[in-house]
Structures are given as structure tokens and as C-alpha cells.
């Protein structure tokens, strides 16, 4: 009876994930090896279970790496990947430059402030993502709040053109995922024994050198985690480049969307998705390793 219950507890979520997470990706993989066609569904070969096993094998013979070779040879696609990497990397750098001082200040705030500060840092994550992105449109548009204020104060004569540029995309990405960067860094800093810095200063370090020789190196695991939690979602982001970026600011997410909905080239979109996952695998594994090392200590 008990072991039956145990099996049920495992089986229900497992079957769900197999059906709605694993199976879909098997289909994406299969589709990325297929050919686009003017049909419904818009690709071939179409597996037909009624053909039996050999029918499936026959269909599988038609698999092709066309989509992948196009992705890897066409400069248009390569450009998108490179610019995605660049934008995600830049956003990560900016997020660290903003997030680290914030996390440091949080960890050094009086103890009774900290619970409130943590809630303040997490709360944006719960609020609507779309609304947070939209808020920046209101601010950054040519006739938006920022330009309005700057023009009104006479600081600029011409409206600044930020909206629909890469700059706006960067601002959006940093804004949306900053909490993910701050929290791991804060955790790493908060865990540190304050006696370590005192010991360093007792041994002759100045405040600055104590920070760089003790506090900072010890916070590196949190810094890595925070960087990856910014970089990974930034790479696959669709909404932010679509709403804040210009039509030239292509990122992988927008490419996928366009291939899927506008060009209806499903094999191409599938292949692009697989390549995106491949690009994310390395940082993901790094993150996983950092996490398990954290768990060991």
C-alpha cells in the first residue's frame, strides 16, 4: 500500500513532464531535421503511425540537416546569434555593476532593515513583467517622460533617441532581471562572517584592501550565479527586444518568432531553438556546478 502511494506520487508529475515537456522537445528535434513545405502542417516528412514501423523508418530517411547548415552558413542568422550574445553579455555586465553595490549595501544595512530590503528586491519579480517593460516605453519614447523632463529643464534641445535602440533593450533587460542578479550576490555576502573583514583590518588591511582581498573573492560564487541568472534569460528573451528594440535589433527570440509566425518555416524555427538551447547549455552547466558546489559547503 505504502509503496503504491510512493509510486503514484512519482508517476503523476513524471508522466505530466514526459507528456508536456519531454515529448514536445522530441518533436522540436525531429522537426529541426525536417523540410519546410507548403502544407498543413507546414513541414515534411510527417510521421504517420498507421504506416507501421517501416513507414516510420522510411520517413526518417528523409531527415535533413538543411536548416542547421543554413543557420550556420548564412550571415544573417550568424549575425543574430552574435548580437544576442553581445547584448546579453553587455546586459550582464551592467547588471553586475548596478547589482553588486546594491547587494553589498543590502548586506551591510542594519539587521532589522534586511528582511524589508530582501522583500523589496524580490517583489518586482512577482509584478507583471509586461507592465515593467511597458513602463520603460512610457519613459523612453521620443515623446516620453524622460525626454519631456529633460527638454523641460532645458538640458537638451533635441529629444534623445533611446527608444527602439539597442540601448533601450539593454535598459529593459537589466531592469527586468536585476533582482535575479542581486539576490545571489546578497546571499553570498550575507553569509560571510563579519569577523573576517575585522581580522583583515586587524592584520593591517585598509577598508578598501580588506574588501578586495577578503569580501570580494568570497562573494565570487554568488557573483557567478547572479551573472548567469541575468545572462540565460537575456539570451532567450523575446518581449523586451520586440517592444523596446528597433526593427534592426534582432535577437534569437525575435528570429524564432519571425521564422515561426511570419515565414512559417517551422523546421528553421525548430533548428534555431535547438541551437539556442545549445548556446545556453554551457552557462547552465556552469551554473549547475556552482550551485552544487555551494550545496557541498
Amino acid at each position, binding site marked *: 500500500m505504502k509503496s503504491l502511494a510512493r509510486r503514484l506520487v512519482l508517476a503523476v508529475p513524471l508522466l505530466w513532464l514526459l507528456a508536456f515537456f519531454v515529448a514536445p522537445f522530441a*518533436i522540436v528535434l525531429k522537426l529541426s531535421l525536417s523540410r519546410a513545405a507548403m502544407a498543413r502542417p507546414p513541414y515534411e516528412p510527417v510521421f504517420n503511425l498507421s504506416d507501421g514501423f517501416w513507414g516510420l523508418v522510411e520517413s526518417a530517411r528523409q531527415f535533413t540537416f538543411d536548416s542547421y547548415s543554413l543557420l550556420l552558413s548564412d550571415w544573417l542568422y550568424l549575425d543574430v546569434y552574435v548580437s544576442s550574445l553581445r547584448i546579453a553579455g553587455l546586459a550582464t555586465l551592467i547588471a553586475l555593476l548596478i547589482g553588486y553595490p*546594491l547587494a*553589498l549595501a543590502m548586506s551591510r544595512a542594519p539587521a532589522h532593515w534586511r528582511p524589508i530590503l530582501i522583500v523589496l528586491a524580490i517583489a518586482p519579480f512577482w509584478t507583471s513583467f509586461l507592465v515593467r517593460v*511597458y*513602463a520603460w*516605453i*512610457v*519613459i523612453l519614447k521620443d515623446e516620453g517622460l524622460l525626454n519631456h523632463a529633460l527638454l523641460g529643464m532645458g538640458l537638451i534641445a533635441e529629444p534623445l533617441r533611446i527608444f527602439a535602440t539597442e540601448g533601450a533593450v539593454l535598459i529593459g533587460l537589466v531592469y527586468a532581471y536585476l533582482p535575479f542578479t542581486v539576490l545571489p550576490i546578497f546571499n553570498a555576502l550575507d553569509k560571510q562572517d563579519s569577523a573576517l573583514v575585522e581580522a583583515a583590518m586587524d592584520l593591517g588591511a585598509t577598508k578598501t584592501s580588506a574588501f578586495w582581498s577578503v569580501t570580494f573573492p568570497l562573494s565570487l560564487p554568488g557573483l557567478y550565479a547572479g551573472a548567469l541568472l541575468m545572462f540565460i534569460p537575456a539570451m532567450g528573451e523575446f*518581449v523586451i527586444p520586440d517592444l523596446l528594440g528597433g526593427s534592426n535589433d534582432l535577437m534569437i527570440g525575435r528570429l524564432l518568432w519571425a521564422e515561426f509566425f511570419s515565414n512559417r518555416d517551422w523546421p528553421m524555427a525548430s533548428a534555431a531553438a535547438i541551437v539556442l538551447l545549445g548556446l545556453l547549455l554551457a552557462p547552465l552547466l556552469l551554473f549547475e556546478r556552482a550551485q552544487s558546489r555551494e550545496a557541498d559547503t
Partner: protein
Amino acid sequence: MPRIGASGFAALLLGFAFLYAPIGLLAIYSFNASKLVTVWGGFSTKWYWALLDNRLLLESLWVSLRVAFASASIATVLGSLAALVLARHGRFRGRTLFGAMIYAPLVMPEIVLGIALLLLFVALGLERGLLSIIIAHATLGMCFVAVLVHVRVKMLDRSLEDAAHDLGAGPFTVFFTITLPLIAPALLAGFLLAFTISLDDFVLASFLSGPGSTTLPMRVYAQVRLGVTPEVNAVSTLLLAFVGLVLLTGAAIAQRMRAV
């Protein structure tokens, strides 16, 4: 402030200003009487009243609320079961794989998950609509629930369950009198998180919606792409307020649970 100092205080102020000023401005300007979004024309709530006449918006809100409730309920059940498996089933074969299946959707770009699920429905020849969005949101939500509940179950002092067992409770009684009440706050938090994620999702819903199942974020997105309007400001502010309300209610219920 013994250790924080002036620069630290400035970092806190600037950091949180960066996080909160944009949505704060948005909320303020939703009460702007002027039709020009950036020019302050006095206080007014007219854009909120105008929403009540926007039938498409209200319809999509109703769709979104139903989807969010259904998917968060499924996600809570499935995610809690998954969390119990991760925390309590010890080292069974394939545990690492199971754990990876739970964590993968959390970091996977939504657009990839959306495409994958859409292709599944196409391959199975199933109609897209409310049900497909609910399934997509439940799949994503269950992983968030699983992580939240897993943390709570791991923190649970094992000797509490041992003690109940020792005092004469069978496995099911132990679960319902000890384990479940003690992880209930995490279940609630998980449900609320899954609910807000579903209510907020645009990407998955765009891939998986069919005719008549346009969600609120899809409707808002379409309007946002057309430009900034005072009405969208009002909807956005309502969404912010709603999430705030949900969180406050959740915190209050969790407080009550602890006190009873």
C-alpha cells in the same frame, strides 16, 4: 547605521529607485487626465472607468483569470508531488534526470517552450484554446511550485514525522496531520506564484491560444505595440495593484496559518 555609511545608503537609494521609479511613474500617470500620456493634465480616474466599456479587454481578463486559476491549481498539486519525490524518495534511479526535468523549464526561454508545446498540439492534431494554455502554464508553474515546496520539505525536521509515527499515526495520518499543515504556507506561496506567472504570461499564451482564448497579456501586448495610451497605463496599474493585493492576502493567510 553603523556599517553601511553614506555610499552604501546612496547605493540602496539609487538601486531601489531604479527598481521602483518606472512602475511608480506608470502608476502616477495612469491618473493623468490628459490624453497625452506624458503631459500632466490633472488628476482623473476616467481611464479606469473607460476600461469598463472595453469589452474585449474584459473578456480577455475573464479568460486570463480562468486560465490562471486552473493552471495554478494543477501546478500546485503536480509541483508538490514532484517536491515530495525530490525531497523524500531518496536516491532512486533517474532522480537526477527527474530533477533536471523540474529545473529545465525554469531556465528555458519561454519562446522555446512555447514552440515545443505548440508543435506537440499540432502533431497530436488537437485544437488550441483554453486547455492548451492551461496545460502550458501548469507545466511551467509546477516547476516553480516544486522548487518552493522542495525547499520547505527539506527544511522540515524529520523527527516531527517520526514523532507522529511513534505516537500511533499511520503513514497517511502522518502526512495529513503533520506534513501537509507544515508545508501549507509553501503550497500557498507556490499557488500564488503559479497564478501570477500565468496571469502575466504573454509568450506561451501567444503560441497556444486559439480563437476565443485571447488572454489579457495578449490583448495588452497588442495595444502596447500600437503605442502608449492612457488606457494601457490604467490596465497596467490595475495589474500591479492586483499582484500586490494577491501577495498581501497570501502573506496574511500565511500569518494566520502560523498563528492557528
